[in-house]
């Protein structure tokens, strides 16, 4: 198939970017979206042009490195997949595809389609962990009985790969789905109780400091999340936060 690609090109963080049009022929349905961009880049390099910079790593939907706003949606039009799992068979010959970086003030563009998502790292560092003794006295996590339902929900929350699609999809560029998943994965487990109050307070404070917007419960994040992280987690984070602060 032959495609018209409208791609955001930006030389560096301080440069003014713009959409540049490319025509790409010979795209096959079995190619992944990133492979399609690889082909484009090979063409650009062979012509002596600068390739389009984009993030990728595992290319099997587990690392959370790939991003891209494709035709107005993070990770493209399909549901519950990342951009690397999106296949070109989802598009038709002659289609125009608009490819932009994830947009948020807290995710500044580094170059072309690559954005700096270290704001998520800082939210994690603010409390997304449990302090355990790892000096030879570690308690086997499986020695503590946990309700099956709680373990399942904690595991569901833990499947968040931190890709940032929730921020990209939200009209407010809110990071509440991400933060709430990282709060919930511990809030539901006994190991997470000791630091529960400090965790939620510190992570929410960091989230606000990074300049993300507020959740207005539109639910767009849940729909666009490649891992199907539920809005239930945001409600849990709100509960945890209110309880921690009011007891405070």
């Amino acid at each position, binding site marked *: 198939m032959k495609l018209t690609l409208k791609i955001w090109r930006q030389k560096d963080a301080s440069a003014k970017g713009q959409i540049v049009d490319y025509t790409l022929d010979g795209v096959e349905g079995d190619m992944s979206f990133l492979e399609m961009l690889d082909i484009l880049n090979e063409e650009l390099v062979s012509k002596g042009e600068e390739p389009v910079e984009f993030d990728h790593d595992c290319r099997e939907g587990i690392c959370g490195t790939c991003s891209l*706003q494709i035709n107005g*949606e993070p990770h493209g039009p399909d549901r519950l997949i990342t951009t690397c799992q999106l296949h070109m068979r989802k598009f038709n010959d002659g289609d125009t595809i608009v490819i*932009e970086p994830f947009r948020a003030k807290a995710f500044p563009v580094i170059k072309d389609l690559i954005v700096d998502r270290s704001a998520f790292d800082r939210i994690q560092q603010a409390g997304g962990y449990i302090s355990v003794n790892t000096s030879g006295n570690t308690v086997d996590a499986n020695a503590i009985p946990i309700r099956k339902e709680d373990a399942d929900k904690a595991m569901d929350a833990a499947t968040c790969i931190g890709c940032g699609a929730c921020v990209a999809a939200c*009209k407010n*560029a809110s990071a509440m789905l991400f933060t709430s998943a990282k709060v919930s994965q511990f809030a539901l487990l006994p190991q997470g109780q000791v630091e529960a109050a400090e965790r939620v307070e510190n992570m929410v404070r960091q989230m606000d400091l990074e300049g993300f*917007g507020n959740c207005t*419960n*539109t639910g767009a994040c849940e729909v666009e999340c490649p891992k199907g992280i539920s809005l239930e987690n*945001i409600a849990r984070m709100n509960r945890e*936060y209110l309880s921690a602060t009011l007891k405070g």
Partner: protein
Amino acid sequence: MSGLIKSSIARKVVMALSGLFLVIFLVLHVTINLASVISPDFFNEASHFMGYNPLVQYLMQPILIVGVIVHFVMGFALEIKNKQARGISYVQFKGGAAAPWVSRNMIYSGLVILAFLGLHFYDFWVHEMSYKYIQMNPEDPTRYYAETVEKFAPFWRTIIYVVSFVFLSLHLWHGFASSFQSMGVNNKYTPSIKSFAKIFAVVVPLAFVFIALYHHLNPITH
């Protein structure tokens, strides 16, 4: 505690609590107004009570006004912060692919309701204040029904009221159930809360529409 006031979650809770308070007020408002259709005498009695009871006048009315102001001031503040959080806009953004229109446009339905409140306050509250405290008229427990019906005589005012109630419905459609999520309530009762909120969002504004049209179509003939 100062961290709580500044936090995004606390601000959402303020929106939710003030919104729920206004929802409760709507129930009271629509109940009394329905009386104007069923029993003009009861409507007069209830309106007179609301207009002269010191508890209503000096406690409930100021609380209501504060509730309205908190809700829209916080709504504006959050909207400005949320707009800033995007930074550079997308060339293409398919918001509708993942979230319904009403949930993405609460600020616009809210603005219509706010503009309507301006007219509504002018129509009834300013009139009431002028009647009682400027013209210093004596108490008249029989005047309210006629005054209300008269207000709906002009077609333009009736239409503005009806259109505003449609926007109230849109606002409640998302806002009512959303307030529970903001306060951390998302459990086995959530589907029932959402269903109830949607029925409420249709029935209450529809009742207001009915009342406005009823009085427009049934003027008092002397």
